[in-house]
């Protein structure tokens, strides 16, 4: 089967093309030795099937980033039958820089001019034929998005792959042309494949090449010494880059004619003016972030009720609807209750909760009707449906969060935020680029950790990986929602979404603080450079968003009915049986014994020995099962609450009701609950996330990350509990922190040449 490789700049639409070509045959693997995704698939619409390999997005074939090395080595070593170079037609010059390098290899190349739909929309013109003549390889106009031109592209690529090709370089007519020619001949004489490519790279002073061909390097060095005039002592690397672009501008740039006059603003530019406004940029970002959480967790849409209340002496317009008809009341409560009009997220939660409660009641009734054994009824009603149902009721809300995050990401706004925040981030030792994986962490830590691969600096990557779990993921969100909802229910005047937002922000703040500390201690170094393309804004495609949602939904349901189901069964079993396999009350169960072991440890955090009737173990156990999946914490809450005596009356606030119940029975204070939430937010993430972070961490270093998580969560939760319960302890904490900072700063002053950021350069 022939192999075609896809190569191109990031943001050129390569992945869209890959998806269009391979459809469901695509699968993701790993490039050996490096942590970069390898995507492969099969294209089936030619006479014979063709394997497609998606190379990482790269700007050039220099050996300075893992992606570039992978792409280059793949083409040199694996010898694909054709390289399809995706070029963003709206960005021709820079894209062609890579093209000129690809052309230097002895491999068939087909250029796909992508984004022709945008070109047309802008009224600009593309002369693909001229380009083809100049480059000497097939050039096909396509729109990967719209699906046009793809068949022709593949057909021409296929044809090219049958013909073979010798490399050519645009540097032939440059001052370097002569020495390149000489070295090429030398290498060809030694039967080195792709002699031209190696020759060019050698002349450019490419590190990998120099190591591999020391003899030829001497030729180049000699040439350098000999050349008089303009070439003497020059940096050939710079010369080559310069020559390439000169050639591109002179010969290829003409293929693209603009309709718009220079300086005219596009819609994207107009949006950018506001979103990255000098003064309003950051406040707007904060509002957008807050809006995300408000729409997901809030119970008072746009705070309308509270605002009306201000004008009305404390009385909002909201009230609990009581028509006398229970069903109607419950249904109305989904959209509107004493708190106010529900936000979309709250509506979905209430609806789902309504459904799961209804199903739960149905199952319970059914079980009773057939007179199933008591233990079976318990297992199904409390264990299985309690755990799984409880988690399921959060699904719509989490999906809402994901949807909003998707919109942010797909629109291109994220890159802008990195741009805005870079300076602030730098103070803490990170580049703005690190922001993107962090925000992804709000959805799920796993893709966020994978995204850190795009961070060039090793230390930055390691630090970012460590703190990604601090960005409360979708699985932890139910914990926050339930706890904040419970506190809001018990104490008047507390807005649940504000509290949730505060906790999210706290997680972010902890991440930044820990990064700052790491920068001063174990991860000293300079901040990574920040030279990044800012792709244009575009409205996220509705279809794309829905596809994302659907996949996430499938994933969530699958998770609920496998891992969480199994965990719930196990928890129920452990809490209802003793070591002798007898069914007992909860105080004599296995769970109780195991949990009690940990209780004293949890005392400083507010959920240990101080709890009534020794119920500290409840929280400890819930946290432990959270290691399997963070949703298990809520599942455990429910199951254990029932075990203690919680009677589910099928109200429409179940996620919150059992927390309220636990508050009552265990005597945990709201401070302890907050500390508990903080603990869960900062501690070791679920196995899946931990495994992913481990994969992104150098060998042998992961144990430090685990220690980091456990230490940070334990200490922070303790501090939170102490400060919230006894306000004066804040002074002690501040003093200790100040002492620590002073110590670290003084110690670092003794280290020579330590710079944070590159401000010293000017």
């Amino acid at each position, binding site marked *: 089967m022939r192999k075609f490789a896809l190569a191109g700049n990031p943001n050129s639409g390569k992945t869209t093309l890959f998806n269009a070509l391979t459809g469901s045959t695509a699968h993701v693997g790993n490039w050996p030795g490096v942590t970069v995704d390898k995507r492969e698939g099969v294209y089936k619409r030619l006479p014979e099937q063709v394997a497609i390999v998606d190379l990482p997005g790269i700007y050039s074939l220099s050996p300075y980033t893992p992606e570039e090395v992978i792409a280059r080595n793949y083409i040199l070593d694996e010898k694909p039958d054709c390289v399809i170079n995706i070029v963003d037609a709206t960005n021709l010059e820079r894209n062609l820089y890579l093209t000129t390098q690809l052309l230097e290899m002895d491999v068939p190349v087909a250029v796909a001019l992508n984004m022709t739909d945008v070109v047309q929309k802008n009224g600009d013109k593309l002369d693909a034929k001229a380009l083809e003549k100049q480059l000497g390889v097939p050039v096909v106009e396509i729109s*990967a998005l719209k699906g046009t031109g793809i068949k022709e592209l593949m057909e021409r690529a296929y044809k090219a792959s049958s013909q073979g090709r010798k490399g050519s370089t645009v540097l032939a007519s440059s001052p370097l042309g002569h020495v390149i020619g000489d070295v090429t001949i030398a290498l060809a004489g030694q039967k080195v494949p792709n002699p031209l490519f190696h020759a060019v790279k050698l002349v450019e002073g490419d590190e990998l090449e120099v190591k591999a061909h020391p003899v030829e390097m001497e030729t180049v060095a000699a040439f350098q010494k000999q050349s008089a005039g303009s070439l003497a002592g020059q940096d050939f690397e710079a010369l080559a880059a310069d020559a390439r672009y000169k050639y591109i501008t002179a010969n290829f740039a003409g293929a693209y004619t603009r309709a718009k006059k220079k300086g005219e603003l596009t819609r994207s530019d107009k949006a950018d003016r506001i979103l990255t406004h000098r003064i309003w940029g950051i406040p707007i970002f904060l509002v957008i972030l807050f809006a995300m959480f408000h729409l997901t967790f809030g119970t008072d849409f746009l705070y309308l009720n509270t605002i009306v209340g201000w004008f009305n002496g404390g009385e909002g317009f909201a009230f609990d609807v009581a028509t006398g008809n229970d069903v109607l009341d419950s249904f109305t409560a989904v959209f509107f209750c004493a708190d106010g009009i529900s936000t979309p997220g709250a509506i979905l939660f209430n609806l789902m909760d309504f459904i799961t409660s209804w199903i739960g009641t149905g199952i319970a009734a059914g*079980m009773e009707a057939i007179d*199933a054994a008591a233990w*079976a009824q318990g297992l199904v009603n409390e264990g299985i449906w309690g755990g799984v149902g409880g988690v399921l009721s959060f699904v719509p809300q989490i999906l809402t969060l994901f949807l909003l995050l998707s919109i942010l990401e797909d629109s291109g706004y994220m890159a802008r935020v990195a741009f805005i925040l870079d300076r602030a981030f730098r103070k803490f030792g990170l580049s703005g680029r690190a922001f993107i994986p962090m925000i992804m962490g709000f959805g799920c830590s796993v*893709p966020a950790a994978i995204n850190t691969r795009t961070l060039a600096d090793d230390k930055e990557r390691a630090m970012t990986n460590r703190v990604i779990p601090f960005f409360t993921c979708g699985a932890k969100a139910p914990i926050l929602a339930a706890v904040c909802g419970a506190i809001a229910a018990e104490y008047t005047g507390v807005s649940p979404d504000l509290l949730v937002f505060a906790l999210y922000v706290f997680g972010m703040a902890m991440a930044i603080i820990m990064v700052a500390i790491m920068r001063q201690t174990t991860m000293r170094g300079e901040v990574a450079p920040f030279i990044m393309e800012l792709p244009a804004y575009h409205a996220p495609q509705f279809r794309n968003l829905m596809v994302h949602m659907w*996949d996430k939904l499938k994933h969530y349901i699958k998770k609920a009915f496998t891992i969480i189901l*199994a965990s719930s069964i196990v928890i129920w079993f452990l809490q209802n049986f003793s070591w002798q396999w007898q069914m007992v009350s909860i105080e004599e169960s296995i769970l109780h014994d195991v949990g009690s072991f940990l209780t004293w440890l949890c005392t400083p955090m507010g959920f240990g020995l101080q709890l009534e009737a020794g119920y500290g173990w409840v929280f400890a156990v819930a946290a432990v099962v959270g290691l399997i999946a963070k949703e298990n914490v809520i599942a455990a809450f429910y199951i254990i609450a029932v075990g203690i005596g919680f009677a589910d009356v099928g109200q429409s606030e179940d996620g919150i009701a059992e927390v309220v119940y636990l508050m009552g029975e265990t005597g945990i204070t709201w401070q302890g609950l907050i500390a508990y939430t903080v603990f869960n937010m900062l501690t070791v993430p679920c196995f899946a996330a931990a495994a992913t972070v481990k994969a992104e961490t150098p060998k042998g270093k992961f144990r430090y990350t685990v220690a980091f998580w456990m230490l940070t969560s334990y200490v922070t939760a303790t501090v939170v509990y102490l400060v919230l319960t006894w306000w004066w302890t804040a002074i002690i904490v501040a003093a200790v922190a100040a002492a620590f900072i002073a110590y670290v700063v003084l110690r670092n002053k003794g280290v020579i040449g330590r710079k944070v950021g590159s401000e010293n350069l000017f």
Partner: protein
Amino acid sequence: MLQLLASAVGTVVSVLIGVAAVGIVVAVVVLHVVRKKQGKGGCDCGCDGCPGCHACHSHTDPKQKKS
């Protein structure tokens, strides 16, 4: 008679549930261990699984640029 039948159903169902429960736990554990051995797993992300799976898609589809 009906009573006997009813309670029989109850017992059968109960037993089935118990067996199923154990089966599920075992199946899930085995499934995950096998997947771990194969090197897969983690997010179960079909790479369209998480909307945040932008690592795999690296800035997905800048379609209508400069719209």
